[in-house]
């Protein structure tokens, strides 16, 4: 039997439009609302219930992650985004491995969250990893790797199509948030 929910945490998925945020969520979480809510309200919430290891006791801890899927369209007012970011405890910043500008814009997205909620545990998801071969051909591998590494946060190549690392990013973020609550050291990117 899974452990009962001991923590509830708020997580925001940010990144440019069409990088695959919604697809990553669909792959992993409880999604009860139509995606039209995202385009109407600028955000939609989903939920994932997971168990991670308690850093103090080693026992499994049930965590309910409430995930705000934030619309990547630049027309969403900044003040509305700030309202959505309020109370956020962790960030998954998503970019598209095939579109270099989406990687470069990640820093702005993360800073936008930090300006409301302070520096938070953050994971970068370099999505569409199933197309990595094509991306390396376009950008030359070293350049792409350097840009991803420069994000300054733990990063994972993910694929909503194959499921690669999808579970990993949610679990890793939950672990980081829990460790932060327990006053353990978590590497935070520069706020």
């Amino acid at each position, binding site marked *: *039997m*899974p452990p009962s*929910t*001991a*923590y*509830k*945490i*708020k997580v925001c998925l940010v990144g440019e439009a069409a990088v695959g945020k919604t697809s990553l969520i669909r792959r992993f979480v*409880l999604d*009860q*609302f139509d995606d039209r*809510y995202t385009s109407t*309200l*600028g*955000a*939609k*919430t*989903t*939920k994932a*219930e997971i168990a991670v290891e308690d850093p103090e006791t080693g026992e499994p801890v049930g965590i*309910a992650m*409430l995930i*705000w899927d934030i619309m990547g369209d630049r027309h969403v*007012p900044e*003040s*509305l985004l700030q*309202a*959505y970011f*309020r*109370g*956020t*405890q962790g960030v998954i910043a998503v970019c598209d491995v095939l579109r270099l500008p989406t990687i470069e814009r990640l820093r702005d997205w993360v800073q936008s969250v930090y300006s409301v909620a302070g520096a938070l545990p953050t994971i970068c998801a370099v999505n569409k990893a*199933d197309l990595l071969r094509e991306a390396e051909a376009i950008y030359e591998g070293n350049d792409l790797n350097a840009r991803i590494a420069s994000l300054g946060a733990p990063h994972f190549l993910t694929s909503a*199509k*194959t*499921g690669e690392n999808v579970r990993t990013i949610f679990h890793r973020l939950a672990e980081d*948030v829990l460790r932060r*609550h327990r006053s353990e050291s978590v590497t935070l990117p520069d706020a």
Partner: protein
Amino acid sequence: MTSPARRISSLGCLLLLALIAMAPAAKADPYHIQVQNDALGTEQGIHRQQWLAQSFVPATSFFLSRVSLYARDRSPSEVLTVQIRPSFGGFPDSASLAGTAVNGPSSAGWLNFDFDPYVELDRNLTYWIVASSNALSGQGYDWWRSGSNSAYPQGTGAFTPNGVNWSNGTQDFAFRVYGFHQPILAFSVSASRLTLDAGQSVVFTMNFSNTGLGSANSVWVNVSLPPQLSFVSDDAILIGGIRSGAYSFKFTNVGSRFWSFRLTASAVGAVPTGTVAETVFVFEGTDHNGRSFTRVVHVASTTILNPGSTSSDFPWWILGVAAIPIAAMVFLFWRRRSIDLSVEEVFVVHQSGILLAHQSKTLTPDKDADLLAAMLKTVQDFIQEAFSTRERMPMRGLQFGEFSILIEPGRNHYVAVVYRGQDDGSFASRVGDLSGQIEDRFGITLASWSGDMREVRGIRDLLPVLWGQEPEASSEARDRRKGRARHWRQVPDSATEGESPEHGARVGETRFTDEEG
């Protein structure tokens, strides 16, 4: 001679057995044919110089559990490897999603290749079954073709001499792809009554449904009865449920349909009148991957009204006679109130949008309460952004059909109540008092809350007040609320600035001055 009671009992057993027999056969495994081409022609060899492949396109997304090829082994010591690969450039990609190998028999037939873990396939994408062997030519396997390239119109056969360079074949191969779809589960509970006397029974009806295309491997309903209620009976066995412990019901291979069973419990004596007995229902399940679905928790509150003390010389009939007009007045008042207003759901939500506590009267939500609370917060943020001018004014209510949602904001939380009927203002005042109590007892915790549910567990104990299960707030409590209102005005918080009660008052209403007057 058989007594009537015994005949009825025997009839009941027969009826029970008949109902069990009538229950539809469950889909007992994850192996259901999803894609197939059974047409058989002539065989083609598989060996180290010739790998064969067949593409297929799933019409729906599903988890692949098994592939079967119509094949035979030409050399008993050889194994045949089958991989599932995505498509790249019209041929099998070099990367494999999954693979497995078996040593098949020398007789021709359907040779099964089971995949563990299962492989998730997306609808309308092309995948390839790639069959390979390290055997020398003439010592590998034979895979039967279908005699035509249109036997399976959505796919095609292919071959390669070196595992890299693929060419189109002239015929499709005979294959079957097995798998399963994911179930979609929902759960609800209803209670036959909300109040009962000692010795009386309440029947909880638990409903769950699977509206997905696939079956759930296992489903549990765990019922925790409070000490004030005693288990009487259940009929879970009628739908194949197995009860264990106190009281866990397990159902296996739950197919696509609606299920319902009942549990009866009776109130024990020697509890104070007005005691609220809370029965907790937890619904959980796993799919064929062993992956758990989101658990659903419902709490049914039942109020014990009469402890049923009877042994005394006191002339109870006098009290009874005197109580009749009082009871009539109480009934009329209660009836008027119940017609006027009926509370359906209460949500207490942190300012971040995280649900802190929830209680439902109807107990039939088909949505997750956490998600509802989060979306309600999102809608509030959107409305504030869309319609506020200079100040961010909190949304105070919504109406839909016969339902209304009253929203009472606090410094770091809000209370949302779904109700039916008309409020003459007294109910809004009670909700305000509830919000004030939460502020008093948990305000400091909520100001820097980390998400630890243990820190806010007591909030739920405050909610029954909205069902009239506790006295209304005293004048002292109202005074405290006024004090809070003054405090908010004096110490604006940047995080909640503009959300003070005076900004939230409806047009023509100043909530706190009404009470002062």
